[in-house]
């Protein structure tokens, strides 16, 4: 099989982030309480809700629970389109404090600027000087709290050697901390940590013992060599490694026609430009 040709063909049909979303949404279970952040992390729970998980409850940290976005995908958790039909409007202490910290949130989707070998995340800044960052990103928002208390989380992010890194420029949100069982033993954090990092190239999952990220799967348009080259630390291959199947027609139809209609999130409209 000619992987270069293969890649070329698939990337005419799907964007890498459509791969990431269609891998990520499968971690969502029907009936689960799912927390969504901003940007790409908004998509998987909504895709799950519109397919196999109609009874999922989507929680936004601002306090909106059970809403279905009206008209367009929200620009943020504070967008009016998710203020319309929520079953309940409460506040940040009730979402991040009560629901998340008591373990009532089963799954959270997070974005990140950087992720280290133990799934710890940086969403704050690039550079080595906090007082004058090379680039300021957004900040923790509720990310730290969700990483601490959510039963599990899944990260969606870009895969570059300066993003999947050995050492974070800023430690915003905990994954498996120092690895192994340190998240619980040493740091006493309540939640279970990251299930997977879904990038635009591959799916990384923690080794069950060391909790170091390994390559669990790659997308068919890339190669293990490319993934390793784009990872900022020497990364192992997980047991059961596989190549991800392309998104199904139904997944793509819902993603493009009902969710990311404008293409702002996955960039799919550029495929046809």
């Amino acid at each position, binding site marked *: 099989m000619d992987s270069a040709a293969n890649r070329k063909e698939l990337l005419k049909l799907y964007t890498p982030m459509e791969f990431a979303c269609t891998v990520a949404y499968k971690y969502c279970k029907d009936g689960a309480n799912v927390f969504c952040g*901003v*940007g790409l992390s908004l998509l998987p729970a909504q895709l799950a809700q519109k397919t196999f998980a109609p009874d999922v409850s989507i929680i*936004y*940290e*601002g*306090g*909106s629970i059970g809403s279905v976005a*009206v008209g367009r995908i*929200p*620009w*943020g*958790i*504070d*967008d*009016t*389109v998710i*203020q*319309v039909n*929520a079953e309940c*409007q*409460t*506040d*940040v*202490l009730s979402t*991040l*404090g009560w629901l*998340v*910290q008591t373990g009532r949130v089963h799954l959270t989707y997070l974005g990140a600027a950087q992720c280290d070998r133990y799934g*710890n995340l940086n*969403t*704050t*800044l690039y550079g080595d000087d*906090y*007082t*004058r*960052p*090379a*680039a*300021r*990103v*957004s*900040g*923790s*928002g*509720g990310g*730290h*709290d969700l990483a*601490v*208390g959510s039963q599990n989380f899944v990260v969606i992010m870009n895969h570059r050697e300066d993003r999947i890194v050995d050492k974070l420029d*800023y*430690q*915003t*949100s*905990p994954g498996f*901390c120092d690895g192994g069982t340190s998240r619980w033993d040493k*740091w*006493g*954090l*309540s939640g279970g940590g990251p299930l997977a990092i879904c990038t635009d190239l591959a799916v990384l999952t923690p080794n069950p013992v060391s909790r170091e990220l390994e390559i669990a799967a790659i997308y068919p348009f890339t190669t293990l060599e490319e993934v390793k080259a784009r990872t900022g630390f020497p990364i192992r291959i997980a047991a059961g490694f596989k190549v991800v199947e392309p998104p199904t027609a139904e997944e793509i139809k819902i993603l493009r026609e009902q969710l990311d209609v404008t293409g*702002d999130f996955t960039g799919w409209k550029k495929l046809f430009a």
Partner: protein
Amino acid sequence: MKNKLMRLDVAVQTFVKDRMSIAAGGFPLARQSNIFIKEILRQNKKGGVKVRDLYWVEPGIGFGGSMLVAEGIIDSVISTFSSHERAGLSVITRDALEKGIPRKIKWEDESNLTLNSRLMAGALNLPFIPCGSGIWGDLKKPGLWDGKMAYPKNVVTEDPFGSGRKVALLQAISPDLSIVHVPFADTHGNGIILGSMYYDYWLARAGKKIVLIADQIIDTEMCRRYPNLVAIPGVGVDAVVPWFMGAWPCNSPGVYGEDLEHISMFIKNSRGEALRSYLDKYVYSWENHQQYLELIGAEKVAALQDNPAKVLAEPFGQWILPQDKVAALLP
């Protein structure tokens, strides 16, 4: 109870002092206290107040907070993120942090739970509060980073009751002033919020003084009919500023949606001459509420009001006081 209505300019002159801490409610797209922030800048120019160094507490630095940074009157920020959500990061905040333009600002990063908890502690007059967040990572490191720390950051401690659990003790924040934009308030200061509350339940209560900005003033009879909708009890509120469209270009669910077009335009005009022109036009050029509304444009106002979330306010229209009655009630 007392009539707490106050004109916008008088409220800024009365409550805003240099070197004070202000906590501002809402979220980057929602109910930010934008008109009050603009009036701080306007009064600063007119000499109604003289403000150089504010200590600014806000969940997410978006439109209003960025304007204060742009005009160089923010000394320090405690916040959890800085962006206009999907519209983009705050160019102005980035320029200040990365390049010191127009001045270097001190910044302290929190998470939404730690910052909201710190404000709740302030509202309850507790000196500190424990939290499960803020134990691991850099959020617990000193934040106000000019070399002279104003106070130590999170103290990680063990449960004195023997569970073995570790928590971070977070210092309370009791801002000198809390400002919160609400769609509805009555003359007694009872504030009603429709849609997500964000931090506002406790952020409002945390202020040593509390000022609400309300799109509409409602008859107290509405509070009596829906007392459980009053999120901010008037008995603790110091003043209510009536200002329809005061959160614009943010949303005020039930009354109007966010003006994404304007926010995107603002981001594109966040530097140099373009920024100057923007501020001249949208902050300084107008003289009164009518001119403010004209600047937004009647068509735009109508379009923003015609928003699916208006269903949240439908039952309440009968209690909205007409403009002339509100004007008569303003001292």
